[in-house]
């Protein structure tokens, strides 16, 4: 009995680590993500994460990583009396603050456009639902502005990364997270696709957290504005007073 314990423990760790229920031997897809938590402190300059797994059926792999979703307002400037002023605006619901994609082949070879739209894979196929729009322009111009700005900030990957498949069953993909990566819960979705059809899908969680003193200051300022305000004033009073005293003695 004692001899079997380490083996059982190892099995549990393996299964747990691969985020699949222990009884699902028949699942064609097992995925894990590493690291599962990213700590962003003041010296953070970006990192890479690795998604890896096993598939038991032939087919292609598509991996998407979506950052926390939030509603955003996009504004367009127009000239009013010679000055550029924010005039038109469109609000979008649930816009991912980060988006990256990796696939074992170009995605339009793996899936039809309709399927890509339905599964919302790739920059051209993600729906951005408008909450309201106050513009005479096409809403699509605002939608493109979101992608342009996010791509510029390296938060949306302009092209799909590569999923490497080895021995027909092991796969792995590397995704980049830039230094300005938003804080929150990320979801990586892995799809196993054959003949344009999704055979299996798995979700893995990734957490991006602020850490260190600057994170604490940020949380404090947002969470307890009044107390933070008093502390900031106290610090200013002391700094000014100390400065005055120090130079009076000279």
């Amino acid at each position, binding site marked *: 009995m004692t001899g079997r314990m380490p083996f059982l423990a190892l099995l549990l760790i393996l299964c747990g680590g691969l985020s699949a229920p222990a009884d699902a031997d028949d699942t064609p897809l097992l995925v894990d993500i590493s690291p599962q938590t990213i700590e962003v402190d*003041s*010296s953070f300059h970006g990192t890479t994460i690795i998604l890896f797994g096993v598939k038991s059926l032939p087919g292609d792999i598509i991996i998407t990583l979506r950052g926390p979703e*939030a*509603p*955003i*307002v*996009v*504004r*367009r*400037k*127009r000239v009013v009396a*010679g*000055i*550029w*002023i*924010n005039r038109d*605006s469109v*609000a979008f619901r649930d816009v991912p*603050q980060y988006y990256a994609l990796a696939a074992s082949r170009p995605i339009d070879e793996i899936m039809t456009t309709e399927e890509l739209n339905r599964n919302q894979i790739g920059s051209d196929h993600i729906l951005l639902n408008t909450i309201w729009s106050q513009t005479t322009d096409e809403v699509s*111009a*605002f939608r493109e*502005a*979101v992608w*342009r*700005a996010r791509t510029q900030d390296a938060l949306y990957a302009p092209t799909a990364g590569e999923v490497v498949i080895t021995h027909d069953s092991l796969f792995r993909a590397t995704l980049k997270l830039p230094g300005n990566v938003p804080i929150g819960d990320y979801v990586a979705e892995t799809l196993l696709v054959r003949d344009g059809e999704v055979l299996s899908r798995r979700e893995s969680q990734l957490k991006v957290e602020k850490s260190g*003193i*600057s*994170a604490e*200051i*940020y949380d404090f*300022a*947002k969470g307890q*504005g*009044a107390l*933070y*305000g*008093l*502390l*900031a*004033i106290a*610090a*200013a*009073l002391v*700094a*000014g*007073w100390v*400065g*005055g*005293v*120090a*130079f*009076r003695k*000279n």
Partner: protein
Amino acid sequence: MEIYLPIAEISTNVFLLLGLGGAIGFLSGMFGVGGGFLMTPMLIFLGVPPIVAVGTGTNLIVASSVSGMMAHWRRGNVDFRMGALLFSGGIGGSWLGVWLFRALREAGQIDLVISLFYVVFLTVVGCLMGFESIRAALRRGTQRRRKAHQHNWFHGLPLKVRFRRSKLYVSALPPVVVGFLMGLLAAFMGVGGGFIMIPVMIYLIGMPTSIVVGTSLFGIVVISTVSSFAHAVQNHNVDIILALLLAAGAVIGAQYGTRFGLKLQGEYLRALLATLVLAVGGRLLYDLVARPDDLFSMTLMAAL
């Protein structure tokens, strides 16, 4: 040495911030002004969001004015009754200002309004100072005599109060109104407003010059304290790390600026400051009229 500013959410060089604080402190020591009206635009040029530049500015002014106020206090040059009236007006002005600031932020127009306020105000102050220094340079030597204080329509207002330290018996309304306007300015621009308060106290209220500087510094400290607090509560835009680094530079810079300023002649000093003020205003104006690189901008709604 890079440092991450937690509220401004940008990384900047520590020595750049100390240097900027030092330069503004030097100028404010040299010209005898608060320097807030130069600090906020400089922070914006550095890439600090305008909202954070203003909120942090209010906090910075607390630090840079308190030692001066205490020096005047020790010499008995603060009229606390006048200060209390300024304060009561200032609370109202600050809260209204910060509330309007928040409303404009949610409407996506706050950056524009901050820039406009600065352009108008730097242009007006720069021109006034420029003309004044030219006139002074032309008229050097011929001194005009002024009465201890003139009587004007201000003195006909009701609610008269006796200000023992200022040796005045005037209405309580002007100080309250001035305090209110200063509070508004402090909230919107992150400035102390001494350049407005001092002329009003001397020319309109008729306070003795010896009391004016100490009392206005007292007013600036309390009003910027209230504004800073209101911003921290309503807009979460006070960056304590940024404020302390700038304050450290400013305190040191001011000492050298004061010494240097004593060597220069007043009108040249003012002409120099006027040029600087107009240059900063011009740059802000250029940013408003030049076609931006990207016409579109995005804001997270959760951040509103």
